[in-house]
Every structure is written in C-alpha cells, then in structure tokens.
C-alpha cells in the first residue's frame, strides 16, 4: 500500500543533497519537532495521472517559491497517490493522519476522491485544502469549518461557458459530454446560464475511442457552436477529429477539454478553441508572471489551472500560518486566519465566501501558440465578476 507513496522531505532535501547521503529516517525524526507536515493527495497513476502531476508540481513549486517554508516554518510534504480508488485514498490518508500526524491535507483532483477523504480528515480536526475538486455537496450542506478551497466549485466553469455562449449570441448550441455524473453536471452548469436552444445533447461512454459518429452528427445539425466537456485523452481525440473533419469554423466551447495538460498532444488542432478558467498563463500580474516563469524552468511544461490552484494553496497556508505566528495547533485561530484569505494569488485579488470557497472572476480563454512554439490558453475576456457559487447559501457552519 505504501509502494507508491513516498516522502518528499522538502525541508531536508537541501541538506541531503549537500551531504550526498541518503539518511532518510533520521532527518525525518529531526524534522518532526519543528516542520509543518502536509499530506499532498492526488491521482498520480492511471488515466487521470496527468492532472495529478500538474497539481503536485504546482504545490511543490509553491512551496519552493516560499523557500520550503510555510509561515516561517519548515515544511515537509508527504506525496500520496490516491490511485483514483476511494478505499485506497481513505486508507492512505488515514495513515498520514494517524501515523505521520500531518497538520494539513492538500490537493485532490477528482471529486469522488475528495468525498471519500473529507470526513476522515475534517473529523480529526485537520484542515483540508482542496486545490481542484469542488463538489456541490461540500460547498453547500456538507461544508465544514476544516474544509477550504483554493480552486472553485465544480459548476462554475461550466456556468461561465453558458454565460459566454449567451453573451456571444449563439442561438443554437450542440452539447456533447461523457455519460457519467460529471458530464451531466457540466450540462446542468452550462444550461444554468445559457438560455438559447440546445439542438441536441449527446452522451458518449467514457471509454469512447472514436468520435466519427458524433462529428458527423454535429456536421448535420449545423449548430452556431458546440459545448463539450471531454477531460483527458477523450478531449485530445475529439479536438483532433473535430479539426480534421473541417468543423473548426463552428466555435468550440469547452471546459476541461483544452488546457495545458492536454495541449501538448492537441497542438495546432486546438488553436482558437475556447475554455473557461479562473486563470491563464498570460495573466499580467507579478505573482502570475513569476509563477509561470519559475514553473516552466523547473518542470519544463506550461502550468495549467490545476497547477495554479495548487500553487495558490501553498500561499494560502503560508499566509494563514504567518498570521498565527507559526502556531498550527490552535485550530480556532488557524481557521480565522485561513478565512481572512488575503494571500497573494496568481489570479490577483480574491476572497473566500462563507463556505470557504473563493469568490472570484471567471474568464473566457482560448488556445494560442506562443512565440516559442508551445501552446497555452489565453484570456479573451472576463465573463463573470466576483462570482460566488450557488451553494454557499445552504452552508451552515458552526
């Protein structure tokens, strides 16, 4: 079970590298007295691993930016692969809480993984910062004083795209999503703000290999635009086929389909395709510019929203621990400090709502080719300003 989880003793790395030794256990024992321990949980194997890698690298880049310290205290990250299996996630996180006595749990790509670990973590009075997953239950009725988000509520990007379609004046939209819960949520989110006609809604199996059938249907329907949510390899396939079939003149509105985790494989085929995001690598503020530059230097690829939100999670914790003057034992003080939410974000200023989810702007972005030949998403225009999710009202926190 521990095969895949390994210790990244960020605090001790420097000394280890200097001495060239592999004195693992003693350095941890020494660090235990003073370092803040964080368990990073993400999907690092299987088909979802690309997103987990972005999330992890974003977190590590954030910690590195802060000189391997959070609020002035050395930090030690325990990287956990949830393997996209709820039982595995729970048992690994339990071990981190009980055996390794971590002070914080951060990360989590997929909502079902977050839902699996949220109770074990929050019931042990440990703070959980989600850097991506934001299911409606946890933003609403199931919210917790110990749960914070540095990302968004799941519906928001889809709703942003719905609003964008509305603003752009598309009358007839064709919807194409995978046949599972997140796909249905995407449709609901999009439709919450899009009021035009939906020509057709197609649900494809998650194991879909070829999109010829759907591409043919889109060509026949001749919509003003299509809206799709096709994460990972599905999106790579759809985007290439859409382009090859000569449909690129029909605007391609998407969420989690063209982003920096899939663009290296999509390349030119994704050019000018739209996505909705909280942030894009071309954001023009010092924090964002420095993030992109340092991240690319360290990891050799363009950071995505996933990486940005995890990077922000590090700064979120840093600001809060600084506010409590390094005290992570006083949970009430720490909660108040986290709720202030005044950390420097790559998204510029943002604040936290009553359910601990950010209230922030959402952007329409599109894929562009940079001067160095790499592809990234770039902002087109702001669609939603200081948007709060619709579940905050039903969150009653003690």
């Amino acid at each position, binding site marked *: 079970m521990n095969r895949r989880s390994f210790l990244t003793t960020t605090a001790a790395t420097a000394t280890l590298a200097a001495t060239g030794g592999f004195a693992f256990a003693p350095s941890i024992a020494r660090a235990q007295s003073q370092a803040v321990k964080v368990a990073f949980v993400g999907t690092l194997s299987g088909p979802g*691993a*690309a997103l987990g890698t972005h999330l992890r690298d974003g977190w590590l880049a954030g910690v590195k930016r802060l000189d391997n310290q959070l609020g002035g205290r050395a930090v030690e990250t325990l990287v956990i692969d949830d393997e996209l299996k709820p039982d595995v996630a729970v048992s690994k996180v339990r071990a981190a809480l009980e055996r390794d006595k971590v002070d914080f749990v951060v990360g989590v790509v997929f909502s079902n993984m977050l839902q699996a670990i949220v109770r074990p973590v929050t019931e042990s009075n440990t703070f959980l910062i989600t850097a991506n997953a934001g299911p409606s239950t946890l933003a609403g009725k199931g919210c917790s004083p110990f749960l914070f988000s540095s990302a968004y509520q799941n519906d928001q990007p889809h709703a942003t795209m719905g609003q964008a379609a509305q603003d752009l004046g598309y009358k007839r939209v064709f919807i194409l999503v995978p046949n599972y819960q997140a796909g249905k949520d995407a449709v609901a989110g999009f439709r919450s703000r899009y009021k035009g006609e939906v020509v057709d809604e197609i649900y494809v199996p998650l194991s879909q*290999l*070829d999109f010829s059938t759907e591409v043919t249907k889109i060509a026949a329907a001749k919509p003003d635009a299509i809206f799709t949510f096709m994460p990972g390899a599905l999106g*790579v396939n759809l985007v290439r086929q859409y382009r090859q079939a000569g449909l690129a003149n029909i605007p391609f509105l998407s969420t989690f389909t063209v982003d920096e985790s899939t663009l290296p494989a999509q390349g030119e085929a994704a050019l000018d395709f739209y996505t909705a995001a909280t942030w894009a690598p071309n954001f023009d503020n010092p924090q964002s510019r420095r993030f992109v530059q340092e991240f690319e230097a360290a990891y050799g690829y363009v950071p995505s929203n996933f990486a940005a939100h995890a990077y922000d999670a590090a700064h979120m914790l840093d600001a809060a621990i600084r506010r409590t003057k390094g005290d992570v034992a006083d949970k009430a003080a720490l909660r108040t400090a986290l709720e202030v939410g005044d950390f420097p974000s790559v998204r510029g200023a943002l604040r936290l709502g009553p359910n601990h989810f950010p209230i922030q702007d959402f952007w329409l972005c599109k894929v562009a080719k940079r001067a160095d030949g790499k592809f990234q998403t770039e902002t087109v225009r702001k669609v939603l300003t200081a948007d709060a999710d619709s579940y905050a009202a039903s969150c009653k926190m003690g």
Partner: protein
Amino acid sequence: MSMLLVQALNGLQFGVLLFLVAAGLSLVFGVMDLINLAHGVQYMLGAYVAATLGVWTGSFWLGALLSLPVALLVGLALEWLVFRHLYRRDHLSQVLATFGVILTVEEATRALWGSAPQTVLEPSGLTGGPMGGVEIVAGLIYPTYRLVIIGVGIVVPLLLWFLVERTRAGMLVRAGATHPAMVSALGVDIRRLFTVVFAFGAMLAGFAGALASPIFPVAPGMGDTVLILCFVVIVIGGVGSIRGAFIAALLVGLLDSVGRAMLPDLLRLVLDPSSARQTGAALASMLVYIVMAAILFFRPAGLFPGGRSA
C-alpha cells in the same frame, strides 16, 4: 440518408482498425493456443514508438515505418523472456502472466513518456484542411487518412490470407496449429516457428498502433479498451480464423457506429427526449456485447470456427 452512408463509412473504418489489432491476437491465439492479454500493450507500444519517432524524424510516415522493426524486436524479446515459458501451461497461467506483462509495460511506458497524452504528427499531406480530405456531405470533410486506413484494412487481410493459405511458411503454421507433435517429428523446429508467429503478431499489433496513433489518443491505458473489443471480435469471428476476425471486426465497427448514431433517435419515438438520449447512449455502448451474446447463443464456436481442431 447520406448521413447514414457517412456513419457506415465511419463504422467500416473503425472495424478495419479493430481487425488490424485483432488479427495478430487471433493468429497467436489460434496457432499457439496462447491467450495473450499483453497484445494491447504491444499495440500501445507501437503507437508510442511511432509517435516519438515521428516527432524525431519530422515525418509521421517515417516514424510509423520505423516503429515496425521496434515492435518486432519487442515481440521477440517478450517471447524469449515470458511467453516461451507459457505455451504448455493452462490458460489461467497465461492470463496471469500476460496480465503481469501489461502492468509492467504500462508502468514502464509511464516512467519513460509520462502520463500525459503524446504529441502525434499529422500524416503529412493527408489529414484535415481543404486539401487533405473529401467533402462527402456539405460541411463535413472526410480525412484522406481515414480512407487510407480503410484501404490498408482491405490489403492486409488479403496479404495475411495469402501468407497463411498459399505459402510454405503458412502451411507449416497451419500444420503446427493442429498437429504440433507431428510437425515436430517431421523435422520442423516448432519452437522457432512459434517464435516467428508470435513476433509477427506483435508486429501486427505495433503496426495497428502506429496506424491508429493519429486518430486515437496516445496515452497510458490506450491498449485496454481496444483489447476488450478485440476479444469480442475474435469470439464472434471464431477463434483463430482470420476471415472470421475480419468479418466480425467490420460487424462490430458498424454496429458500434450506426448504433451510436441511430439508437438515441429511434428511442425518441417511444421515450421522452432526455431519457431517450441517456438510455440510447447506454444501450448503444452495450449493443456490441448484446450481439456477441446472441451470436454465441446460436453459434457457440463463433461465425467461422477455425484454427485448432482439438
């Protein structure tokens, strides 16, 4: 109506790709009585190597061509390391061992290439764009590359048929499949024959992977979904029969494409639109398996029982 034609073309092309993967599997299964679950990862390796070499050499075609000897070598190495020791074992051991190969190769691929989908060059001069396709229906370009795949998918089975039915090597393979002891007694090195057949099967899988790389995403796990459909193809077609695999692959491809295109609309006649969509989608993805069950009920040995007589 023209849309239905396009959907049939889509199904044909998907079926042909399935055949290319299934052919190697069927050959190995039929001739050597070896269940090779690792066939899917050999297909995956073919796609990865073709994608990487394509980017290196700057030409998709060169990459695809160079991936063939690599797939052959990987096949030989795997045969020597693992499969050689499995021929005399029962099917359960073969399934376990080849499943182990899947896990090992998948992790190795992830370690070498990472988890993100790979960049694949567009086959030059063929895909997309106004010049690279045929506009079959207004507004829909059918990429030439997909037509090329259909062409390849017709030539390869003919070649295979010729090889197995009309050449001396093919005769030995057929004889080795049904009467290995007798062939061995006549002075033919049956081990080497099996090695060659296995490596050839691996190369076919790699070839299919290379050919599929511009169409399907080149990502970890890409072999698994295809492998399942390939087993469906082999079971429908009859174990070990190339002709059966070909017909079954086309059938599966057509069923899948046309089912996905038509079912939601057909169900709309009896259900309300939103439940028709979701039931239709669910039913369409089950259609292939339902048909397989039906065929097995009436013809338990598949459409064209061949290969091993015992």
